Structure formats: C-alpha cells, structure tokens
C-alpha cells in the first residue's frame, strides 16, 4: 500500500477540478495541491462542451435577467438564492480566463463577443467558436503548469473513507502499476463530472460514468435531484456526438420526415431555441406521430437539422460540428441535412451542495456537474454548465484551501483501508460467476434508454427497478477475465458499473416517486407540473436496502412559479 498526503486533494481533472486546483494554489502557494483523475486532465469530458458559457458582460443585460432565464429554464426547481449569487460570480471568470489566454471569440472592436443560445432573453453566451469547453480546458490545464500542482494521472478512485462522519481518505488504483494507493487531504473536492453514460445514446464521453456521485453516495453523502437527466435535442445519429445548440441559435431549423419545420407547434415564440427539454420532447413526439426519418442508421428514427440556409456562418461560427458531420457521417452541412436525435447530455442531480460548494461532510467540497447546488433545477439551460465549473470550481478551490490552512490530516483509518484493499483484490478480482461486465453495462443502458428516458410512466419505471435489481445480482457474479496489474481497464469498468447500478436505482426511484412533470422529467401519467406537492428537491441517502428518499423545499426569492412556455 502506498500513501500520499496533500493539503488540498481534488478528485477529477475536468474544468471544475482544474479551476479549483488553480484557485487553491493561488490562494496559498505553500499549500500542496494534488489532483487525482482516472484520465489525463485534457481527456476529461469538459473538452467536448461546444456552444458557449453565459455571463453578464453587456450593460444592457442584467444579473436579474440571467437569474430569471436560469430559474425559468429550471422549471422553478432551481434555488433562487444560489442562482442569484452564482450569476454574479461568472463575469470575473470570463475575464480571468481571457487574461490566461482563452481565445474567446471577438467583436471587431476587440471586446469579447456573445451570442444567442437556447431560452436566453439576452444573447449572453460567451464562446470560443464552437469549441468553448476545449479552449477553456486548454487554458486551465496550461495555466496549471505554472503552479506546483501534483497531478496523479490515471488513478482510479474506488472509495471515500469517512471516520465518525469526518473525512479520512480516498482509496485508488494506480492504473499504470496496479498499485493500491491511499490519498489523504486536509480538504477534499469532488469534481468528477456527471453520470450520462448510464444511457446508450449519449453525447457524453465514454468516461462519464458517475464515479463521483457513486463514491459519495456509498460513503453516506446524500445525492440530490438525480431523476433529472437532460436530453440534448441534437445528438448526431448514430454516434450520439453533440451537435451544439448554437447550430439552432445561429438559425438552424429542425425538420421532420416531410421536411416540415415543426417546432412552431411546440414553442410558438422560440421555435428551435426553446429550452432543451421542450425541444427534445417535441422531436420525440414527431417521431411517435410517424414523422421521424427511417434511414440508413439502423433502427433509430431521427429528425433533420437543416443548416443549409446559414451555410455562410458554418466555417467561422460552427466549424467543429461542420467538421464532425463531414468526418463521422460524410455529410456536408453546407448543402445536406444532418440526422439528429435526443441524447443524454447533462446530469442535473449530483452531490447535495450549495453555492458555497460544501457538502454534508465538513472539509468535503464539490463543484461542476458532480454537484447539485441546485442552479439547474429540473432542466439546465444551454450555456450554464461551463460557467458553473469556472465560478464554483473557483469557490471550491478557495474554500478547500481555507479549510486546509486550519485543519490537519487525520490518522489513517487502517481498518477501513484494509477492507477496501481486500474488496478489490480478494473480492472483485476473484469473483467467478461467469457474468461479463460489459454485457451487464449494456443491459443497464438499454434499460435506462427504454424505461427512464425522455418520457416516463409508472409501469416502465417499476420494470426498470426490477431490471436493476436483477442486474445487481448478476454483478455479484462477474468474472473479470483480465488479471493483469498494469492498465487493467476491465477492472476499472467493473467499479464504474458498480457506481452506475446504484445511480440507475436512485434515478428510477426518484422518477417513480415524482408524480408530476417538471423540466427534463416528464411523466406521461402526470403530464402537469404540481407546484403544490413538488416544489421540492429529492434527497437520496444510501441504505443497504436501497436509496432512502426525502424531500427539501426549493428556495424562492422573488420569482414565483408561473406557466412556462417558450
């Protein structure tokens, strides 16, 4: 067993984790900052963010407007106090990353340019062409080279160990050597991203398997609002690769099989630039009504994204998706239609937190998609994720650094660490029931797509719970065939699937109990929003018999819920 101590320990090297690491290192250069990730940081899914990040930079815009758009987008499930504080933190992050070299797209006068995005009442999406996440990540990773941040690349975290409710340690496997490595920090930041690969058709990188949510949950830290999974309207068929919302905010149309522009039926004011939940449902309803395209991509029916009339904008403002359509589908978006279908894109839920980034465990913080503050409520607005990673990654980094200054590393809980070591080498690797981990994962994803997708109903949700229980039994009988120490990805998959099974259960249970429709959670059997009973967050806490669900009221400051239409 190898032991490593840091003052501030960060799990996850995506946008929130890198931002937090820099903030902690800048707060006090004497602190040691360690960043542990199962990937090299630049391989994190944050690099795939495309269209933009909302920030109030223009005097004609206002914090109130950004707050209101976010709250309406959230279908009134976002906590309004947190949102009001959050939007005020964002502009400084845009300017800071500009000083650090981020190539924000420019106006002719040299100032930072902004554009429209889905469900915004002011064009406040700050962007770096359609590679916003990529450029911000390159900027942060490169900036991090300036500090003495210790990068532990390709260490897979298996467990958070608490002792008497206090932070103790994090156990990992160094993928390169297979060594069991225990990390301790005076403070710990979770920044491990979302859980979107619970689903088959996803815009997500393969690596987004909900490890952070899963680890926290098993340690007894509650998760919040997990039933809210965002489906992005335009995943490229058949790969699921994201086609940015900017394709529509720059003027692109959605067409059904009759080549009719159908969004007017569902969002008479905003059309294609309504919020994502609204557009995704519209596409699914078109397909259900028999107006989906049955084409060359297997069984999946889809609709078309038409950008032919904005062909002159593609090379400058949408270069990446133009290139993606060409490289992956052989389609020239200037002259041809692009096949799209709703795909899982964002996990609104996460570790129960707040705008100060704290959790139920003192000294443990969380930022980015791993967190549920809640800013996004039942539906995140496009352009409101990377700004959260920057603003709250910064808050978490400073908070963790402050905590580290006045606290010490506890004595290692050797008994629990030894138990975890045994679980890995003597349980996981020695199970021999013949079940294949990849097959269990595939069956789980098929179940989630089918039963817990854009549309939900009681019976399919109950079926999902049964299926997950059966999958959990099969999981006990896996055989990991790869016995190597070095780079054993099959073992990594096994841990990921363990987290995914827990999360699938929480998502389904939350969706079943929420007998209303709000934001991304749409119940066919309860199609209306029910403010009297459900202006509240779902809190899921681990128990041996499955998740225990409790509820907490939403914080409302000045925007009372009203009918939401676009």
């Amino acid at each position, binding site marked *: 067993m190898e032991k490593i101590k840091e003052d501030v320990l960060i799990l996850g090297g995506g946008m929130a984790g890198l931002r937090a690491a820099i903030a902690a290192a800048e707060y006090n250069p004497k602190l040691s900052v360690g960043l542990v990730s199962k990937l*090299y940081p630049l391989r994190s899914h944050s*690099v795939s963010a495309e269209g933009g990040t909302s920030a109030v930079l223009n005097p004609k815009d206002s914090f109130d407007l950004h707050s209101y758009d976010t709250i309406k987008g959230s279908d009134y499930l976002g906590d309004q106090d947190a949102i009001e504080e959050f939007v005020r933190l964002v502009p400084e992050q845009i300017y800071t990353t*500009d000083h650090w070299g981020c*190539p924000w797209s420019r106006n002719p006068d040299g100032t930072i340019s902004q554009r429209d995005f889905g469900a915004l009442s002011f064009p406040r999406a700050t962007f770096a062409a359609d590679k916003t996440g990529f450029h911000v990540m390159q900027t942060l990773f490169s*900036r991090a080279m300036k500090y003495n941040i210790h990068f532990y690349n390709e260490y897979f975290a298996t467990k958070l160990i608490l002792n008497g409710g206090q932070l103790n340690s994090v156990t990992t496997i160094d993928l390169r050597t297979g060594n069991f490595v225990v990390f301790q920090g005076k403070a710990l930041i979770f920044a491990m991203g979302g859980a979107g690969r619970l689903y088959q058709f996803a815009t997500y990188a393969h690596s987004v398997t909900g490890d952070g949510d899963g680890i926290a949950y098993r340690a007894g830290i509650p998760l919040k609002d997990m039933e809210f999974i965002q489906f992005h309207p335009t995943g490229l068929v058949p790969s699921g690769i994201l086609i940015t919302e900017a394709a529509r905010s720059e003027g692109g149309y959605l067409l059904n099989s009759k080549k009719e522009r159908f969004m007017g039926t569902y969002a008479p004011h905003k059309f294609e630039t309504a919020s994502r939940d609204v557009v995704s449902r519209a596409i699914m309803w078109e397909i259900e009504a028999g107006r989906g395209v049955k084409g060359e991509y297997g069984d999946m029916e889809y609709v078309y994204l038409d950008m032919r009339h904005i062909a002159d904008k593609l090379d400058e403002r949408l270069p990446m998706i133009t290139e993606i359509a060409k490289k992956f589908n052989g389609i020239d978006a200037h002259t041809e239609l692009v096949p799209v279908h709703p795909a899982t894109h964002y996990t609104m839920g996460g570790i129960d937190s707040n705008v100060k980034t704290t959790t139920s465990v003192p000294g443990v913080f969380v930022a980015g998609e791993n967190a549920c503050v809640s800013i996004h409520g039942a539906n995140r607005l496009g352009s409101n994720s990377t700004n959260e990673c920057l603003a709250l990654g910064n808050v978490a980094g400073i908070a963790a650094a402050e905590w580290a200054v006045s606290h010490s590393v506890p004595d290692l809980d050797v008994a629990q660490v030894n138990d975890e070591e045994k679980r890995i080498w003597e349980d996981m690797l020695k199970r021999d029931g013949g079940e294949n981990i990849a097959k269990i994962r595939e069956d789980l994803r098929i179940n989630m797509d089918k039963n817990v997708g854009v549309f939900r109903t009681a019976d399919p949700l109950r079926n999902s719970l049964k299926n997950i229980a059966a999958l959990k039994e099969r999981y006990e009988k896996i055989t990991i065939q790869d016995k190597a120490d070095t780079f054993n990805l099959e073992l990594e998959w096994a841990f990921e699937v363990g987290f995914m099974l827990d999360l699938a259960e929480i998502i389904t249970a939350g969706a079943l109990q929420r007998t209303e429709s709000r934001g991304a959670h749409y119940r066919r059997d309860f199609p209306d929003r029910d403010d009297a009973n459900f202006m509240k967050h779902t809190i899921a806490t681990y128990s041996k018999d499955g998740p225990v669900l409790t509820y907490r009221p939403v914080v409302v400051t000045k925007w009372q819920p009203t009918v939401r239409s676009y």
Partner: protein
Amino acid sequence: MEELVVEVTRTDEKGNQKLQSFNVPKDKVSTVLEALLYIKENMDPSLSFRYSCRMEICGSCGMEIDGKPHMACSTTIESLKSDKVKVAPMKHYKVIRDLAVDMEGFFGKYKEVKPYIIRDDENGKYESEILQTPAQFDEFIDYSMCIKCGICMAACPIEGSDPDYLGPAPLTAIWRYVADSRDQGAKYRLEVASGPEGTSRCHFVGECTEACPKGVDPSYAIQKLRGSMVKYEFQSLFRRH
C-alpha cells in the same frame, strides 16, 4: 456477414510483444475505436487502449493505424478501403500495455515551454478583457487547436533518433503564445525555441503537419518561430548599441 480483420500489435505487462488478429463484424462498428471496443467487450477483455470522447477532441486514442499515427475514434472503417487494418502503439513512446503508451515525457516537454500567458500586470483580479482585434486573434487561433494527442511526436523522424528534441507540439505551443497579442513572454519563449533542444533540430520534412488530426501545421509554426528568432536577435542587437 462482412468482417474486418483487426491485427493488433500487443504488448503484455512484462514487455512481450505478439501480433493478434480479431474478426469484427463490419455492420457493428463504424470507426477503428468502435472496432477495438467491440473486441474488448465481446472477444478479449484484456485488450488495453485509451479512449474517452470518441469525437476527436480529447486526444486519448492516438495510435499507429496501417503504419501511420491517427486517432482511432475519427478513423472510419469506410476510410480504410480494406477488409483488414493493422493497429499498433504510437512510435517514439514507451509502451505501457498494448496500445497505451507513456505520455509523461510528452506532457513534461509541454510544461517546460511555459504554455500560458506571461504578463507583467498580473494581479489576480480582472474586471475587463484584454482587447484583441479579430486580426490579432487570427494570428494565433489556428495554433491553439492542438489537442495534445502526441501524434505529431510519433510522426516526427527527429523525435525517434533524438528524444531530447522538444518536438512539434511543444514548439507549436511556444509559437501559439508568441503570436498571441496578450502575451508578453516572448523573450523567454524565443530563448527556449532557439536553445539546443529547439527549432534548430527540425529538418522541415513536414511529417508532423501531415499527421496532425486537427490541421494545426506544426511545421509552419516552427518556421514562424525561426523567423521571429531572427527578428528578435536583430532587434536586441540593435537595442544594445
């Protein structure tokens, strides 16, 4: 059913190498990465390789495909125009296992070139942007597209014989910052570029530019750097008198 024969150069954890072929149904996969995932999920779970975004932006899956370094995720089966593909780890890197290679040296070189904006007015608190015209922006933006996949290093013939050479990606990073109007670190950067591990070792064969999946053109960046170095030398000579 049509099949694709995937011949993989495998290396086990003790360093033993062997060739192994897998027959993958063509209708199940559309890219080389998908073929490798198909093999791992259905045929041999011990096959090791890196992957993540599958959309050619995270830089994980660089490997030798039919003798040239490419991203597995964006190499479509259709583009192979063959029923057989040979897959091997990238050259010039130490193999960890199968197709996963050691990237520590690559990222170490990247860190060495100080790949971040250097300015005299850093105070940690910023309330506006640094003005930059679209023309100034155009000077560096193409060079900021590098995804750090390391493919150019595998393509570069100098890297093979001369591992101390900084190589195309780190040198391109130097030019990316020299060309950025917001940066004030040109002095340090050009010293590194003109140092013993710098641009002088490049023979301008252009393999890096040909291999780069993102069209970054490291070879041109290195030429631009050499031009700047001459200009800089001249100016500093002038200042001394």
